[in-house]
């Protein structure tokens, strides 16, 4: 990444202009044309440096309930269990970690009832009952902002 890339990206990590032509607004600040700014973003996207631009919601304010779930899955059942978990659109992240509880995923649902139903279904389908439901109590930070050097 060039210094210019980092500078431009850093400026973008906090807010994307809320105006009819946001790329023109960014271009005006960076001293280039709207066309150049758009081309720059498309290049970042193509290079995989930019995943997307979007509105970030506070899910709790939308009444959505979320949790972090840890499962203790034996090696022999790992592939099948991961497939079952990943099939849910409600599950956004799923990781393998080096712990007795080795599978960790985040789940969100429109209601408590829905969340419990999803977890019950996963237990039933996978046959894994050793599950920690680490319900969110308070969010101190939820932001993908990095210090770019």
């Amino acid at each position: 990444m060039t210094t210019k890339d980092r500078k431009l990206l850093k400026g973008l990590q906090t807010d994307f202009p809320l105006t009819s032509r946001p790329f023109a607004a960014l271009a005006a600040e960076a001293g280039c044309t709207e066309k150049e700014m758009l081309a720059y973003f498309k290049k970042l996207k193509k290079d995989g440096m930019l995943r997307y631009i979007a509105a970030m919601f506070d899910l709790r304010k939308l009444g959505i309930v979320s949790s972090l779930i840890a499962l203790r899955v034996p090696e022999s059942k790992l592939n099948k269990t991961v497939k079952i978990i990943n099939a849910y659109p409600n599950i956004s992240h799923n990781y393998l970690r080096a712990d007795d509880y080795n599978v960790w995923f985040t789940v969100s649902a429109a209601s408590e009832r829905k969340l419990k139903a999803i977890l019950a279904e996963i237990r039933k389908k996978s046959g894994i009952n050793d599950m920690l439901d680490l319900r969110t109590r308070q969010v101190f930070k939820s932001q993908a902002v990095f210090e770019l050097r």
Partner: protein
Amino acid sequence: MKKDVKKIISALSDPLALVSKPYAAVAGRLGMPEARLLSRIQAYKDAGVIRRVGTVLGHFKVGYKCNALVMWQVKEPKLEAAGRIFAGFPQVTHCYARQTYPDWPYNLYTMVHARDKKESETVIKSMSVKSGVTMFKVQFTIREFKKIRSDLKEILA
């Protein structure tokens, strides 16, 4: 949630197109004037429903290859202070207080991103020193099975 609010939120849960007028494109899909959509987004921001409109970078590709889930065992009266201290670290992207169980005492969870294991260990140590929390467990990611943006359309459906 009101039906029209749900429609707008669902439409906004899609990433913005890389075009000159990305909000106009969303407004077009919703069949509403662009100006009205912009003012609705501003209102959601003011209400805290939308935290921000922003870019999400591909962490792995900008050099943050090492991510660790660090779970902390914090004495309940110190939880709030520790949460704020951890949230102040630029390498910490997520900091959540969570439910505990008799055999699972960790109540504060942080995601720490660093370039390598050594750097993340330095950060974690500094978090411990600064907060005074000495009971913690570090879990590095071995494999990423899934990582997507929460699909609000599906969740709210």
